[in-house]
């Protein structure tokens, strides 16, 4: 990704007194799949609409393939969009929907039918070409919307929560299908979602968005294992958090006093600063193998099929979540057990004035 295919710099948008997008920078490489992940109101859809040309930014610049498109109208951008509700043309058939963009761009008539057929086959909707789009199920409409957006060969494809209306099984199948289709076509894509699983499954990189800015940009593994901020830790995956105060710092290892005991973590903090410790639930084990240890009382056991969640309460009200494959023998709510995890799995953040909650 030495040369960015899409380069967004300083994109800002305000609605009245509310800053929806606060000077966002984002570079996307060619054929890359990037997710904008965040809760509703974080600015991800606004950013998408700015890139599509459906909304002008107040500040900033959008450059696509070396061409500044900030002020270009949407129909001259070569940016395709798959909308959340699919936005298929109800008065046209499946094939006519896919042909719409080709006709609007005055593609040679002889080329339209083969292109439409090719993209309908790509999304496995070839058999439905002459159906009315109103007769299709949600998943089928979704496939047609993808075929319609890709048929014109856009430089960039934007997807605005395209799976949110589908049930879980279908959604998971569509995620894998969409990834395969985009790889086949080689399209660069930005995917907007509030579903962390979706983002982790599909993306080359994820941009975690919060309050109009990007909190962290990285691969799914980086985002999950090394969340850069308490918000990223909180929004992506489950975690246990313990507030504490730095007691001492020694060559990159910080000693933190928590209500539940002394914990060590990698980091650089001045003694006395308030911090938040975080640990992923599958990194905590019942036992004493890890460098960090805490005694906690089991309060709840939640069976989840392949895994069980153990909810612990530490002294001074700290709460710890442990994920295991099975409930250890002889363990029931009420017992106090030693919990431990590795030094390297301990995440450390400065405590922010408003706390660390999402």
């Amino acid at each position, binding site marked *: 990704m030495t040369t960015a295919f899409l380069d967004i710099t300083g994109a800002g948008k305000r609605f009245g007194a509310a800053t929806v997008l606060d000077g966002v920078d984002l570079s996307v490489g060619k054929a890359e799949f990037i997710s904008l992940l965040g809760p509703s109101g974080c600015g991800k859809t606004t950013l998408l609409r700015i890139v*599509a*040309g*459906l909304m002008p930014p107040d500040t900033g610049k959008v450059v696509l393939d070396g061409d500044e498109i900030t002020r270009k*109208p*949407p*129909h*001259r*951008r*070569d*940016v*395709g*969009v798959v*909308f959340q*509700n699919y*936005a*298929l*043309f*109800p*008065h*046209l*058939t499946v094939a*006519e929907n896919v042909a*719409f*963009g080709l006709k*609007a*761009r005055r593609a040679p008539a002889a080329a339209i039918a083969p292109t439409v057929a090719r993209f309908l086959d790509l999304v496995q909707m070839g058999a439905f070409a002459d159906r*009315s789009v*109103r007769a299709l199920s949600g998943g089928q409409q979704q496939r047609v919307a993808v075929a*319609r*957006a890709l048929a*014109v060969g*856009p430089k960039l494809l934007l997807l605005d929560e395209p799976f949110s209306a589908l049930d879980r099984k279908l959604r998971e199948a569509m995620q894998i299908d969409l990834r395969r289709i985009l790889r086949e076509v080689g399209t660069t894509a930005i995917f907007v979602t509030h579903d962390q699983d979706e983002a982790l499954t599909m993306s080359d990189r994820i941009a975690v968005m919060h309050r109009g800015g990007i909190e962290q940009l990285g691969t799914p593994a980086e985002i999950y294992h090394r969340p850069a901020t308490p918000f990223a830790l909180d929004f992506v995956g489950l975690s246990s958090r313990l507030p504490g105060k730095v007691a001492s710092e020694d060559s990159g290892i910080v000693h933190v006093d928590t209500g539940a005991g002394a914990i060590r973590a990698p980091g650089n903090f001045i003694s006395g600063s308030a911090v938040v410790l975080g640990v992923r639930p599958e990194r905590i084990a019942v036992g004493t193998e890890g460098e960090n240890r805490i005694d906690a009382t089991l309060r709840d056991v939640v069976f989840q099929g392949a895994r069980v969640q153990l909810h612990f309460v530490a002294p001074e009200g700290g709460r710890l979540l442990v994920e295991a494959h099975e409930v250890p023998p002889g363990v029931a709510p009420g017992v106090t057990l030693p919990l431990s995890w590795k030094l390297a799995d301990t995440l450390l953040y400065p405590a922010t004035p408003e706390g660390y909650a999402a």
Partner: protein
Amino acid sequence: MSTTRRLDPVLLLALPATLYIAIVYGLPLLFLMGRSLFGTGGLDSFVGFFADPFSWTVLANTLRSAALVTLVCLVIGYPTALVLARAGGFAQAAILVAIILPLSVGVVVKAFAWQIVLRRDGIVSQAMTGLGLWSEPQRLLFTEAGLVIGAANIFVPFMILPIYAVLKLVDPRLGEAAATLGASPIYRFLKVALPLSLPGIVTGVAFVFSMAASMYVIPSLVIGDRFQTLATLTGRSFLFMRNEQLGSTTAVVLLALTVAVVIASASLSRRLGGAQ
């Protein structure tokens, strides 16, 4: 799966309206039609009507003025409906009030207002000569142009409202989707908004055409006796000429005409919207 059909009790709710229409509209209409057919000698009255060249002038007047009024309403009304559908909040409410409120002013009052506006030294004439578009002041009052302007003014809400009602239901994302597919604003309008609003256009055209074809007060006040339409001729026949035979004949012709327009427009909309 039962083959016996039971009347849905909810249908009874339509009973008052059905009775009302049957008594105050259906019965008189039947009398009228009966009189036109069986008054003197079967279809003689119709044969006589269509043999008279004056009748053809009246028919042409009716169709031409109604078509022009409908056209003016469509040309003015469609963009208004488009703006109304896209506007939000206060602007939308303000436009709606501006469209609907004038309906509460009686036609007679409006007709006298037009007499001021459309006469030789009226605002329109002064403006046109002032702008140099007309070489000398002209009188629009007592002309067909004046009639079309006046009638369109009254009927335009009946064009705007059905089109607006349909356009409002069109998902704005469709236009955005078309734009991201590379469609220019004009292409988007022609291929998305216009076909999707056709049912509204057809309803509006049917409303305005049938009202314009049967208007009586407006031509009487704006033009007078020199310009006869089926409606004014029907009125004259009953009120002044005491010729019930002629009046019922012209009334039935007018009825057939407007019913034909409504049926034709309905089938047209079904055909145009066939893919929907």
